């Protein structure tokens, strides 16, 4: 496994209407690592993913992608953005067929061999047989699987997952978790997964970070975080208690 750092944020601060969400936060993820970010609702987990993806500009701090500092401008480092993907809790289906939705990121890049790449990506999430259907007619589980295929078809180096299995049934959760593990192994990608599901974090992540009060309180191997956390706030959170 290559342990090179794929992405890192240093001293990231972000506030909305004078309400501070992230304060001097630093985080990194390496190739082949699946980092779960856990924490109570409203602590800025989604905000952090959007900043890492270039959708939001931090008030201060720097984001590095493969050692290159991202420039937040009009197109926010298009080259770097084209090597990462963000999968949200409620993916938006473009008004096209399932096939064209998955082909969309490849067409943006004038990619070759679209036919094979799209059919491979759909095969991995068991959606090849509905590829002609309009994406807007899919069930929530199918839609999330399509969104996963769409986010990985161009083989991003960094995959950002924001509550990607929330409200799904066990079958779809299983398909998606298998797909994430396959992608991580096959592509040696770096994955950051924000989740409220502690069982999921324990099940598939290699490292876990606890985000609270706008900062990463603790980051370690997942077993360590769940069995012997060093900070008592982390301990309280993984035990299902209120954190202060």
């Amino acid at each position, binding site marked *: 496994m290559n342990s090179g750092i794929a992405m890192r944020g240093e001293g990231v601060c972000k506030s909305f209407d004078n309400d501070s969400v992230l304060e001097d936060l630093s985080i990194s993820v390496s190739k082949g690592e699946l980092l779960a970010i856990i924490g109570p609702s409203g602590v800025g987990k989604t905000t952090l993913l959007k900043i890492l993806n270039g*959708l939001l500009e931090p008030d201060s701090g720097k984001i590095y992608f493969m050692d290159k500092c991202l420039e937040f401008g009009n197109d926010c480092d298009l080259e770097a953005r084209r090597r990462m*993907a963000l999968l*949200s809790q409620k993916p*938006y289906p*473009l008004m096209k067929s399932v096939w*064209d939705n998955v082909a*969309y*990121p490849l067409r943006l890049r004038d990619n070759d061999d679209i036919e094979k790449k799209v059919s491979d990506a759909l095969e991995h999430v068991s959606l090849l047989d509905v590829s002609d259907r309009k994406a807007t007619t899919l069930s929530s589980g199918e839609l999330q699987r399509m969104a996963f295929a769409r986010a990985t078809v*161009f083989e991003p180096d960094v995959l950002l997952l924001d509550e990607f299995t929330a409200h799904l049934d066990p079958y779809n959760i299983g398909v998606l978790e298998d797909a994430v593990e396959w992608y991580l192994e096959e592509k040696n990608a770096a994955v950051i997964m924000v989740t409220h599901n502690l069982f999921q974090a324990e099940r598939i992540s290699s490292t876990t970070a606890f985000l609270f009060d706008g900062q990463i309180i603790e980051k370690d191997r997942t077993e360590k975080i769940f069995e012997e956390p060093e900070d008592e706030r982390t301990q309280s959170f993984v035990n299902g208690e209120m954190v202060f």
Partner: protein
Amino acid sequence: MASDILHVTLLSIFVSVSATLLASLMAVPLGTIMGLGKFRGKEVIRTVTYTLYGFPPVVAGLIIYLMLSREGPLGSLNLLFTPTAMILAQMVLVFPIVTGLTMSSISEVAKDAKETAMTLGADRWQTAKTVLNEARVGVISAIMVGFGRAIAEVGAVIIVGGNIRWHTRVLTTAIVLETRRGNFEYALMLGAILLSVALLVFFVLKRYQDKGVKM
């Protein structure tokens, strides 16, 4: 009589399609920018645009008339009582409608479609194109409503066109004339032709609405 009908019908189509197309060429990009962008004064522009939906055609006709009349700023162009003047008058009426409705359609899908496009690697131009494509049902509806306003318009075109036979007479102004003459059957027939023209254009636009752009 048949050649009269053919002439007014073709001129109606030419004037209203030209006015809708020319107005939309400016209104759709402007509505897209206004729907996507965040800038100072956006709310003021939005309110003014919505207010102009109710712009009285006779006032639009009067303004264009004054601008194109011999004493007006554009008098030297000799456009008064020509189809070009009628196109200009209809453009004034169509432009705010297409701009405002495009802006609303874009705003509805903008956040989700823009974020999706950007997270999948779209540049600014590709993002705008994607958002526009996602809002196509609303945008083409905006153009349809604009065309409806243009083809049914009578007050402005009668002022700037003058309802001159073989020159600036269109279906709506011909209906007014025939009604005044008491030729109600002829006027009703022209009305039926007017509705058929509108139906034909809406049918063509509907096909684009369903198809979208491949990207």
